[in-house]
Structure formats: C-alpha cells, structure tokens
C-alpha cells in the first residue's frame, strides 16, 4: 500500500511539473505572439503594405491554447500589381518560408492591390472550421 502511494505521488508530482512547464510556455506565447510579430515584420519590410492584418486562427483548431500554428494574413500592397494570384501567394509563402517550416501549419492568404481592396467589401472571411465544418 505504501509503495503504491509512493509511486502515485511521484506520478502526480511529475505530472504537476509537466503542467507548470506547459503553462509557462503557453503564457510566454500570449504575451509576445513571437511568430505573429515576425510574420508582420517580414511582410511589412518586403511588401510595404498600405494595409495589413494578421489573424491567429489557431484557436479554431485542435492545438494547445495560445498556439501560433494557424494564421490568416491580409496584405494590401502596390507590389501585387500585374502579378497573378498564384505568384502573389508564392511571394507571401516565400517571405514566410522560415515560419512555415517551423511550426506554422496553415497559412491562409488574401493578397490584394490597394485598388482591389478599396473596391471590395473589405471583409476578411473567417476560415472554414477545422474538421469538415464547412457550410455549417
């Protein structure tokens, strides 16, 4: 009985340790949003957008709270002029290559010229639900 208790104690202790570590990690990412910031910095630096929005959509997915895994970016830039849609997306993907290789799992892109953005309804549609929730 005593032995059993002991192992249980050890188990619960190591569990506590694990929990506190994850808590610290998670709180770190809330305060800084490191990846979100680096996405913004890179896009601003290279595309000098007239309007930019970075939306962390990770909460919609089956990942730990405060994760930075799923993003949607809206970039309105003159540099997209006379560039096909697929090339605009490739450009953004390329700028964020590092992030995409290191933990960013999904990146939804809206890439528009200022004229296109002005003449649109200026709505950023939310991404589809995680697992087959499209159209719900």
């Amino acid at each position, binding site marked *: 009985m005593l032995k059993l208790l002991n192992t249980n104690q050890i188990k619960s202790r190591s569990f506590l340790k694990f929990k506190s570590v994850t808590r610290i990690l998670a709180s770190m990412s809330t305060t800084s949003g490191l990846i979100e910031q680096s996405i913004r910095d890179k896009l601003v630096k290279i595309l000098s957008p007239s309007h930019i929005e970075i939306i962390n959509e990770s909460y919609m997915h089956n990942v730990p709270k405060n994760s930075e895994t799923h993003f949607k970016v809206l970039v309105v830039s003159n540099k997209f002029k006379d560039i096909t849609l697929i090339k605009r997306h490739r450009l953004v993907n390329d700028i964020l290559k590092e992030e995409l290789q290191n933990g960013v799992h999904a990146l939804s892109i809206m890439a528009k010229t200022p004229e296109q953005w002005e003449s649109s309804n200026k709505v950023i549609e939310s991404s589809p639900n995680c697992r*087959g*929730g499209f159209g719900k």
Partner: protein
Amino acid sequence: MNILMKSPKILKFDLPFCYYLSTKIADNIKNLVEGQKVVVFMKGVPEQPRCGFSNAVVQIMRMHGVKYEAHDVLQDEDLRQGIKEYSNWPTIPQVFINGEFVGGCDILLQMHQSGDLIEELKKAGINSALLDDKKEMAEEKK
C-alpha cells in the same frame, strides 16, 4: 535518426540514397499528377475530409460537378512531404489541372467566386456544372 547523427560514416552513405529516394518520390508524384485531368491532394477522403480547407476544395469541385482523383496525404508521409516539394507549395490541399499546379484552398475559392475556375476547367476540356445551370437560367428567362 540519432544513430545517423552520431555516425558520420553512415550519413555519408545515406545522402545519395536519400537523393535516390526523393527523385523516385518525385517521379511517382509526376505520374499521379498527370494521371487524371483533375487531381486533388488533400487531408482525408472526399467523403470525409479531415481538414476544413480540404473540405472547401471538395465542396467547390462538387458544385462544379468535376470528377477528380483524390489522394489522402495523411495516409502517406512521403507523399505529404513530396507533394510540397514537387509544387514548391507549403500547404495542403493542392489542386492540379492537366498536370499543372493551380493552387490551394484560397486560390480555388477565389477562382470559383470570380468565374475563372469555369474557364480553367474549360481549357482542360471539362464543362462545369455551374455553366449548365447558368445556361438553364438564361433559357428560362427567355
């Protein structure tokens, strides 16, 4: 993996082998991509997509009445990585028409909304079901 890191000798032999493997995977993917007019690489199967973005592509294809071949990248890690390298595109789903990479979910959705998808399918000799609907509506109006 640990053994590989610790022993450079094995790593030396391993590199050409990896290269051989990756070219083989690329050849396989080329065959898959060119096997059908429309090919979709997705998470899950069309009947049960395992990701919202993949599901969106499935719904778009359904609306246009397009027959396509779907490959589930969750069933094959080589395919999941290989397809990203093949098309130089970092995310899934991926849509190919006539062997050419067209885009992922965002692009397909935008092409669907702008009507460009109907044109792109037409180029591949596929008649979109939405085009038929439009014709019917126009005739009804007459």
